[in-house]
């Protein structure tokens, strides 16, 4: 067997493969959340958006036989949920977190409701680009099957970084998130900027959901997200609200997710559930390390989560 031929080398390879395959949802959701939080709002509802995106992408791909149309519709579903969240959370005295939790329940509920008929059927999947043809090892070949959607996500990260740095819009978003009073003194509509940021962020999260159901793991089930949407929110804090660091953090989380399966593939079956829990442990560890009651987080948008 080829696995045996690789031996323990299968573990790092498995983790690398899992990183390339499993980071995309983290990446899209964290970039979406990064954009939202830069404008000073929090959208916990992206977990629901992720599920909604996964379901709608799968359904549309099955019905129209076009996976890319599925991706687009997943994004649109994200826009719809994002609009609801934005409308509610931008009302005076409304708490982002409360609305976000409601939107997790709403988004997943709607996804499960409409997704029931699509659990059985098989929908066409997104294509994969074969970067592993040079290798004779089938494991290497399969590890380097990369979805174009992931590459798009990888491209968005530096683009967003540049956007925040070098465009007037990017600066305005940061001003709104950091010091709404200063933004207001410049005559900027805080409402509009936050609205657009939340909606665009949700669009990205919806697209991230389509990756789940149309590439990896590539089916639609109700347990497909496994809390990745919520972890991505934590990841933005870890990434200090920097899009490029969101990319690195997503890769780290994707890799952590692959530890359990990779060890299993070389025969380490004990502690399987413990290893599978590594992304959650990582999230918890990050929260503990980065949070302190005595200081505010460096890089955090100044008015994050406050209603204005």
């Amino acid at each position: 067997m080829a696995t045996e031929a690789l031996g323990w080398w299968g573990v790092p390879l498995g983790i690398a493969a899992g990183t390339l395959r499993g980071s995309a949802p983290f990446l899209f959701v964290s970039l979406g959340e990064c954009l939202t939080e830069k404008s000073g709002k929090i959208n916990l509802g992206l977990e629901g958006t992720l599920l909604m995106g996964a379901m709608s992408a799968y359904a549309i791909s099955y019905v129209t036989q076009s996976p890319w149309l599925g991706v687009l519709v997943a994004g649109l579903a994200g826009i719809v949920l994002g609009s609801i969240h934005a409308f509610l959370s931008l009302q005076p005295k409304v708490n982002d977190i409360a609305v976000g939790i409601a939107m997790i329940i709403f988004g997943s509920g709607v996804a499960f409701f409409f997704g029931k008929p699509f659990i059985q059927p098989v929908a066409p999947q997104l294509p994969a680009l074969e970067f592993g043809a040079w290798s004779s090892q089938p494991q290497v070949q399969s590890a380097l099957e990369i979805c174009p959607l992931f590459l798009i996500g990888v491209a968005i990260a530096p683009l967003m970084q540049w956007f925040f740095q070098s465009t007037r819009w990017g600066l305005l978003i940061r001003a709104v998130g950091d010091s709404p009073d200063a933004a207001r003194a410049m005559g900027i509509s805080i409402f509009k900027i936050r609205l657009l940021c939340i909606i665009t962020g949700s669009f990205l999260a919806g697209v991230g959901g389509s990756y789940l159901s149309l590439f990896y793991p590539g089916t639609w089930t109700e347990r497909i997200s496994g809390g990745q949407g919520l972890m991505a929110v934590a990841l933005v804090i870890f990434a200090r609200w920097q899009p490029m660091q969101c990319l690195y953090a997503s890769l780290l989380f994707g890799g952590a997710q692959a530890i359990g399966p990779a060890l299993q593939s070389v025969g380490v079956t004990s502690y399987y559930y413990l290893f599978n829990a590594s992304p959650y442990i990582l999230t918890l560890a990050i929260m503990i390390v980065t949070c302190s009651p005595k200081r505010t987080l460096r890089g955090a948008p100044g008015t994050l989560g406050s209603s204005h």
Partner: protein
Amino acid sequence: MSNQIDTAQDSNHFQTKANLHTQGFAGDGSGTADKGEAATAPGGSLRENGGVDCIDPNRLDFLEQAQRSAGGSSLATSLLAQPPELEVVNITKQFGTMFALDSVSMSLKPGTFHALLGENGAGKSTLVKCIMGFYAPTSGEVLIDKQICQIASPRDAHRYGIGMVYQHFTSVPAMTVAENLVLSRFDSSNLINWKLEHEQLSAFMQTAPFQIPLDVPVAQLAAGQKQKLEILKQLYLKSRILILDEPTSVLTPKEADEVLGLLQAEVQTGWLSVLMISHKFREVTAFADEVTVLRKGKLAGHGLVKELSIQDMAEMMMGEKREPQQVEKVAPSALAPILQLKDLHANKDNGLEAVAGVNLTIYSGEIVGIAGISGNGQRELVEVLAGQRQATSGQVLVNGEIYRATRAEMFRHQIFSLPEEPLRNACVPNMSVAENLALRTFDRPPQAKGGWLLIHRVIRQMAQALVTRFSIKTPSVDTPVGNLSGGNVQRTVLARELSSERIKLLIAANPCFGLDFAAVEYIHGQIVAARNRGVAVLLVSEDLDELLKLSDRIVVISGGRFVYESVTTNADFAAISQSMAGH
């Protein structure tokens, strides 16, 4: 003194710099070629219109673009060599029935440093807000170069070349200085070419009166540098009339002297006018050319600073020498020290020292008034006494025992307080009037059994009695206190804090702020009544009249220190106002 001398020596140096600054627009040919073309067209239209009458905001806007994009703008430079003259004529601003400004006129001559002086609430801020277009005046006009203009927003004011530096900072803390400057421009393009912007910003910085590193996040700048950035922002926006709203209130005296000295040098070169709101005589005499004084919304005086003495200005600002209005006071029976402060220090929220070692003893049956301009440490002092802030060193003694403002100690010594902003500092807005009235006593008999079982019937009954006795206007005792008017919130707190029979010490901070005349009289009466019962009262107020009327002794706080102390009947009014102003 030494600072002033420094400034004088440096002024030549800055003069040359400022000249460079004006020429900088003409010589700055690094702008892109297409912008250069665009700039010639508005330049032409200016020539046709003769320039001097350029009062249409749009046209001025063109002019700025012409300047900014730097193509052939020598004409523009010469036109704007002198800042416009700003006049306000008979401006009145009414809020409801209250006149915040009552036909005030003043004129800011080109190239002068003009101070707008007055006590808190004299209408200084209202006046500049009318100029900047935040408020529409009820009547009266703003004239620029003798032309009536309609300024409806700060953006309009900016088009006329008027820029304002606010008391609070308006820069985005997480962004760098360069990002803040670029963002502040009203017309910057959607894509930012950082290489080009950096070149232009460094060129601007070289000609600017003060230098700030461009790549540092604003959050890391010291207060003085932040204030400089606010001023630089206005210069960067090509403002020719700079309005400064108490620009030094957040600065140390040294920083203040530096900033104002450099601005004065800019003004002396003749391309900038400054209108500065202040209540510090020292700054006015050191830096301003002319002064306009407001008192209670009316013009109280005007003149050249060099022709006026501090005494003259103090009298204009505070009115004629005022005799303390007497309220019926009985002589205290026995003098026992109640509150003692020993070398007390405390910090502001930002970690700077606010209270710098104060000593004070207050005896029973005595009102000690603390006068001072807000921001001189009185807020922090009251917060320490109320248990809201930790003292960094020093001691507070009550009845000779160390006092840490715990609930048990407050009860044992019977200490009560009327803090400023009572809804925030002394009430739970969403709890009912009855519950708020019981905050001091709810866990003691008769309002509670065994310290934990509350007896709501008694709480409501006692509240009902207090509502009647202190005439609190509330629909019922179950109404949330946040729904009451400001005066009635104040009365609720007063009822709770003064109703105790055994009260020994009362700490009151601006207890009458924003209340109408009747409420003020009522609260004054209650405070004096408490004093006559033998209560020791510490009264912090920004209203000197109130202090002269109520206190037995008056202390002036300035820069966190007590700088003047006197028995009120012997108090020297001029000395009080001068020490308040930091002399």
